[in-house]
């Protein structure tokens, strides 16, 4: 039974750049349920990255509510918030952000070590996860020795190794060619998504929209349109034009 993983209501965020204020989010409403892959799409500067930063608890909104698995992270103390993030959220970044001096296995083991697991056990579990993403033979490789696709797979292993309930991905395929991007998305969907997990992906890459269970189109700090899988299947190519004002995405 799907449960509510992310619940955002009337979320505002403004950046103060010194001489001017930039409003990044202007009253965003969004619900994401477990077992679903939600994509946030829209032009550069529309607030996608700000929204996933708020959802992931690494940025505080100025107004509104954003709950992750029922927890309002802004109400948690710093230590509790860090623990919540360390245990419940996995990250996949556009630039992979692997530590260049650590091997694939050591990189993938980081979330487990942050969660207090001893290094040998963490590395063993990281190796098992790398095996699942097809890199069982590259455990000792440094990021520089891996291709872009392989590095992203290490990043996926790192995002999943501690079994988080929410996986947040920022442009996971933008640096990859079409075929590799597809393989990465297949992998993400296959091993990152189950009935108790939710996946949020920020992307510009229309080639991967087919993997979405729902797409939130953003522009100028708003969600201007929400499409479900049913809409996508029915309408063909998603995101052709803005339609109605944003409504919370209704899970089945």
């Amino acid at each position, binding site marked *: 039974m799907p449960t509510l993983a992310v619940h955002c209501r009337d979320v505002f965020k403004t950046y103060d750049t010194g001489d001017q204020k930039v409003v990044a989010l202007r009253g965003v409403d969004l619900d994401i349920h477990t077992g679903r892959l939600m994509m946030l799409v829209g032009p550069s500067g529309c607030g996608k990255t700000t929204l996933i930063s708020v959802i992931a608890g690494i940025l505080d909104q100025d107004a509104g509510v954003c709950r992750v698995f029922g927890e309002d992270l802004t109400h948690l103390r710093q230590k509790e918030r*860090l623990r919540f993030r*360390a245990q419940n959220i996995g990250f996949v970044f556009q630039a992979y952000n692997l530590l260049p001096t650590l091997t694939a296995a050591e990189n993938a083991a980081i979330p487990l070590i*942050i969660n207090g697991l001893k290094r040998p056990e963490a590395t063993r579990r990281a190796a098992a996860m790398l095996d699942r993403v097809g890199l069982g033979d590259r455990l000792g490789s440094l990021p520089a020795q891996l291709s872009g696709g392989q590095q992203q797979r290490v990043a996926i292993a790192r995002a999943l190794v501690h079994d988080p309930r929410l996986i947040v991905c920022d442009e996971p395929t933008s640096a990859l060619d079409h075929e590799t991007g597809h393989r990465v998305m297949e992998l993400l969907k296959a091993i990152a998504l189950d009935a108790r997990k939710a996946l949020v992906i920020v992307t510009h890459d229309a080639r991967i929209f087919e993997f979405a269970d729902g797409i939130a189109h953003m522009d100028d700090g708003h969600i201007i349109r929400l499409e479900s899988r049913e809409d996508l299947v029915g309408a063909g190519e998603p995101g052709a034009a803005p339609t109605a004002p944003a409504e919370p995405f209704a899970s089945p």
Partner: protein
Amino acid sequence: MNYIALKMLMGDRGKYLGIVMGLTFASLIMTQQPAIFVGLMMRSYSFITDVGLPDIWVMDPKVQFIDDVKPLQDMKLFRVRGIEGVEWAMPLYKGLIKARLANGNFQTCNVIGLDDATLIGGPAVMLEGRLEDLRRGDAVIVDRDGAVEKLGMPGPDGKPKPLKVGDTLELNDRRAIVVGIAKTTRTFQSQPVIYTTYTRAMLYAPRERKLLSFILVKARPGQDLTELTRRIRRGTGLAAYTQKGFQKLTYDYFMQNTGIPINFGISVTLGFIVGAAIAGQTFYNFTMENLRQFGVLKAMGASNGTLLRMILLQATLVGAIGYGLGVGLTSLFGWAMRNTILAFKFPWQLLVYSGLGVTLICVFAALISIRKVIALEPAVVFKG
């Protein structure tokens, strides 16, 4: 997380070696120049240290340092011997006399006249001959450095030939025969030191009404030395210092009246600043280059405390290695220079001070870096 911190630090060999080299260089210049300074300053009172037996040095009240000899009347010796608590008091002559070498060259030497009977004040280590040989006619003992360097002469083959036992010199037109070679600590002026008896020194010295330079005093067992110096001052009108007190008087004179402290002070301060700048900048750059990685760790749930411990561990490690290598290089430098005229002394206090200096640099660099890391918004990781 310690393992990750170490891998971040050492994984990139080039950067890691760069930081270690920076700190090594900082430690080297923070210890090498002060070691030379300490060596130079210790030479200023090395003669007092070498004359180890007496507890108290008695002299004219106007004497400011060991080479500032203001002669006393001989009868002062007997007055000092009469002070309560004095076990024995012996005369010491110390003066600069020109020595004429066998090849006709002249060399100014430090001539030391020791009490004829006891030879108190003589060199502690004899390399050739015996101290008692001074009782032979025209006998003198020469320090090894003086014999090899300034008193050495070109041999028939043109190569320098050290002065040796059996060779002769002329001191003030009087013959002096070398009967021994002694090991002494170099003095500040690095002049050859020639030991002879007090009576014979009177013959070598230019005619003056007063020739007694110092009175060396041994206190009776159980005597309070500070109190005894007071009694000698009261009873004779002369200045009296314990050995340490006379060393300090000499040291203070050189500190206050020569350009050495300011010259070396500038050099040491510049060394510290340059060392601190290099090491601090290198470590700071290292952390800044890893800022994004720290941001990733922060986004994934690592606390500021964890990141702080990681940075401190990195700073401590490179600091310790750099310090060890720097101190090692300084010691190597000192060892390589041990037989040269260069003044070099590396006491444990200098190790402690330089260690504190390097720690200060590392902590400072780490603190600046930590400020950046703590202020770091983890959301930075979402920026491509």
